[in-house]
């Protein structure tokens, strides 16, 4: 029996893009459904009643929510191809730690840069953001990927943020490449992979989208 896979997401969501990357890494066919978060579908509300958020993966009718939990699920079910987590428990722990770091830090700090109306808050956001990226650069070291020789779990968690870089740079008035050249080199390396380039949104479209939201919020 063929697997039935449905992904509920929105096109600008970096969290949804993580799932797309993972599905593409495994070569899986799935149905993508774009959600309108201002008018959530009955299916979304049924499949994620707790948070009512995207992304939601529905595999043979069963829903999984929370992007990195979905990525880990995908890795466990289709474990015969392109493993995202290593086999050694300590290395797995390191991967989970850094993916958790990305989740805990980057998204909230990044929000300060794009949505803040106060210059001081924005400056703090920029400083914290660059500190996080530099720490991640240190963790990457001389490896091609966070997963070592191969693209892995942490790479999936972080790479989708890169489509926001242009937006951060524009509103924060700084160059991420100047500050974190190794990390930007890593994003370009990841984008050479079909699974990544086919899943990430165009950074300029993301910028336009953010711009639109800022106008609606009256901060542009």
């Amino acid at each position, binding site marked *: 029996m063929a697997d039935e896979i449905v992904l509920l997401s929105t096109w600008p969501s970096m969290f949804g893009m993580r799932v797309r990357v993972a599905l593409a890494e495994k070569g899986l066919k799935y149905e993508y459904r774009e959600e309108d978060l201002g008018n959530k579908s009955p299916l979304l509300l049924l499949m994620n009643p707790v948070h009512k958020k995207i992304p939601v993966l529905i595999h043979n009718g069963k829903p999984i929510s929370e992007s990195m*939990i979905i990525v*880990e*699920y995908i890795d466990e079910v289709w474990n015969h191809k392109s493993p995202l987590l290593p086999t050694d428990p*300590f290395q*797995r722990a390191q991967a989970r*730690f850094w993916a*958790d770091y990305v989740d805990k830090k980057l998204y909230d700090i990044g929000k300060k840069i794009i949505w803040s109306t106060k210059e001081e808050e924005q400056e703090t956001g920029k400083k914290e953001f660059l500190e996080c990226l530099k720490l991640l650069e240190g963790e990457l070291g001389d490896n091609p990927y966070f997963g070592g020789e191969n693209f892995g779990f942490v790479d999936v968690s972080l790479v989708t943020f890169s489509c926001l870089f242009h937006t951060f740079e524009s509103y924060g008035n700084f160059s991420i490449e100047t500050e974190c050249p190794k990390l930007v080199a890593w994003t370009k390396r990841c984008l050479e992979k079909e699974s990544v380039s086919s899943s990430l949104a165009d950074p300029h479209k993301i910028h336009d989208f953010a711009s639109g939201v800022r106008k609606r919020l009256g901060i542009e």
Partner: protein
Amino acid sequence: MGEEVKLFRTWSSSFALRIVWALKIKGIEYETVFEDLSNKSPLLLQYNPVHKKVPILVHNGKPIAESFVILEYIDETWKQAPLLLEDPYERAKARFWAKFGDDKVLTSVWNVFIKQGKEQEEALVAATENLKFLEEEMKGKKFFGGERIGYVDLALGFLANLISIFEEIIGLKIVDEEKFPSLYSWMQDFAEAPIIRDNWPPRDKMIVKFQALLDATIASSSSSSK
């Protein structure tokens, strides 16, 4: 080669308790290193330079931080008394509920405890909403893991102790037995389970600690609103 397992923790940390329970359930010998967070040891800073927090598990000299990451490491390294089931869908559900516990339940319950007046009322509404989801999930089960204590029980287990401490201090019911029969009964069963019941931090010390935290918060908010 002998196993060397060390757990860096504080006496009261709910996150560290998860690790204590997991190690004891699996029968793993370990050494406890108590930390004073106002005076962090050089070892703590060396083992967790990113967050500088506890708990930290150090296994044969290699450190692991973040309680859920540590739980999964323990489960993968010592296979006896498994905390997570084998099925990927069940594992995803367990991870989901553990995350929900920390992100939503803990936050809303903490707000009921620490906030005053209207903010407290709003926090209680949010906490009740979140607890309703747990109540649903608990129905028909003894533990979240089924017949045996599992990953989700360890993740949410601090509720079985902390909620009654908060309720005693603020004189407000958060988990009402009538509104949340399954959750209430789980809290009793879990708190009294072997291993769990032997490892709660001293209740009187907890009351003193959290009362002091609440008093300090009230004092600082009333002085800042002058």
